């Protein structure tokens, strides 16, 4: 990758340790993606916020760099481990809470907007078509490239942080006009959001940097998010395009058999001790839809709902939170099903969810069994 004189000088350490570290990360990113130069980006979205995922090493690293590092472009932030408004109900120890607050402070000190959301594409205005951004959250990167006409690598937590600090990112192929070499033919009839989550998980496994997907039909927001979440979890794929693509593309079918394989990999329980919704976090449309579905009904067991703080505030004003709490839901903002420290195998054996992304991490990181069901099925089976 060609660097300008100023970029070279930063890499040599002539502009301080923070810039040197950021440019080292950008150079590794550039070499990995065969980029020829760095280009400006307008928005960075950072992952690596939840103390449950980054641990002491991450907390100490952020505390150290936040003394001098400042972000150069608008920078937003992924969820953390809890909602400060109701954390006392969930039995987290003091160490977790203080380390999490230290991480929050470090990011705020660097000038990051404390949005604590994995769906920046739903709660912030989308810049004009073709704008270069750097999104680390995997579902958000895929959503940005595939639905929002933005351009980003499937950034790592560190490449997005380096882009936030420098305002630059390598000009990789995905930032240009990337053409996929694989087409997935969606063959499953009457898909719901769970089907799309499984399709995404499958696509992530077989796709490289980007894939075509044909036979998608009309998808609602929940289904789009489910697909981006599934795809981000299983692979390196950063984008999907609608349709058959180039006729010379290799073709792969996603039919009952392929879907069953994903289901069998991730579904490990017949039923769950509690229900979680929101991975990615729920947006206002989904909250509204859920409130409608729950009219006159109540959950028979605990149901945790995860959404951004701004969405929770809007939902409160409209009256949805009252409706959901009446139906027995616990509404949590600033955090997410994915990698939550609030669900422990000491307390529950299994969790019911409609999220493929949530299922993967609940199973592997939280160590609980997972019962996969679509939202309609959850409402039908788990409420009265």
């Amino acid at each position, binding site marked *: 990758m060609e660097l300008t004189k100023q970029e070279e000088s930063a890499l040599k350490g002539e502009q301080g340790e923070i810039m040197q570290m950021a440019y080292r990360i950008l150079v590794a990113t550039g070499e990995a993606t065969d980029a020829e130069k760095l280009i400006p980006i307008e928005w960075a979205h950072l*992952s690596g916020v939840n103390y449950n*995922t*980054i641990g002491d090493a991450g907390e100490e690293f952020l505390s150290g760099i936040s003394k001098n590092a400042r972000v150069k472009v608008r920078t937003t932030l992924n969820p953390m481990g809890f909602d400060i408004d109701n954390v006392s109900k969930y039995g987290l120890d003091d160490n977790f809470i203080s380390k999490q607050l230290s991480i929050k402070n470090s990011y705020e000190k660097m000038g990051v907007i404390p949005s604590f959301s994995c769906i920046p594409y739903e709660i912030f205005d989308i810049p004009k078509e073709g704008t270069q951004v750097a999104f680390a959250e995997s579902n958000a990167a895929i959503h940005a490239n595939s639905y929002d006409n933005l351009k980003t690598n*499937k950034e*790592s937590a560190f490449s997005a942080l380096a882009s936030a600090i420098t305002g630059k990112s390598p000009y990789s192929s995905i930032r240009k006009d990337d053409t996929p070499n694989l087409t997935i033919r969606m063959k499953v009839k009457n898909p719901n959001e769970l089907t799309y989550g499984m399709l995404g998980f499958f696509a992530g496994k077989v796709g490289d940097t980007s894939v075509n997907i044909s036979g998608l039909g009309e998808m609602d927001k929940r289904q789009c998010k489910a697909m981006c979440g599934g795809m981000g979890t299983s692979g*390196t794929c950063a984008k999907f395009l609608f349709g058959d693509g180039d006729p010379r593309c290799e073709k792969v079918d996603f039919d009952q058999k392929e879907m069953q394989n994903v289901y069998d990999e991730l579904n490990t329980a017949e039923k769950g001790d509690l229900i979680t919704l929101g991975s990615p976090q729920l947006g206002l449309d989904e909250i509204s839809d859920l409130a409608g579905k729950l009219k006159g009904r109540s959950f028979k067991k605990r149901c945790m709902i995860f959404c951004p703080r701004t969405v929770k505030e809007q939902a409160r004003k409209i009256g949805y939170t009252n409706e959901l709490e009446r139906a027995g839901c616990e509404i949590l903002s600033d955090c997410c099903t994915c990698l939550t420290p609030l669900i422990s195998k000491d307390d529950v054996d299994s969790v019911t969810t409609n999220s493929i992304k949530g299922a*993967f*991490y609940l199973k592997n990181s939280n160590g609980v069994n997972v019962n996969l069901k679509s939202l309609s099925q959850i409402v039908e089976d788990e409420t009265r």
Partner: protein
Amino acid sequence: MKILVQGKTQGTILKSNTPINFLGTVDKKTGIISDKNHELYNKSIKNSILVFPSGVGSSVGAYTIYSIKSNDTAPLAMICQKADLTVATGCALANIPLLVDDKLFSSLQTGQKISLDTDTSNPLTLL
């Protein structure tokens, strides 16, 4: 061959033909793989020369790589079939040597002892 992070080391190869999602499937304190569906399930990647197709999944896996290095449970070096940003940047920050080479990936096997030095013209020698 791409040399994404430079360095020099010696060790024994641990190879996986399945990609690795570092976040949530690698225990930061022990370096043991916790995903029951993964071919390295219950194996420790600590002090190995870890050979695998690529990193996949969460962007936060880069912090996992940085953490295992801080906890002394990281591989000595990594060799991948294709480059991905989680592994590239995690290794860059943690100073874990990282090579990417399709042919090399195919030829290496678990148990082989190798010496790695990215400053030489032939960075990898079988011992």
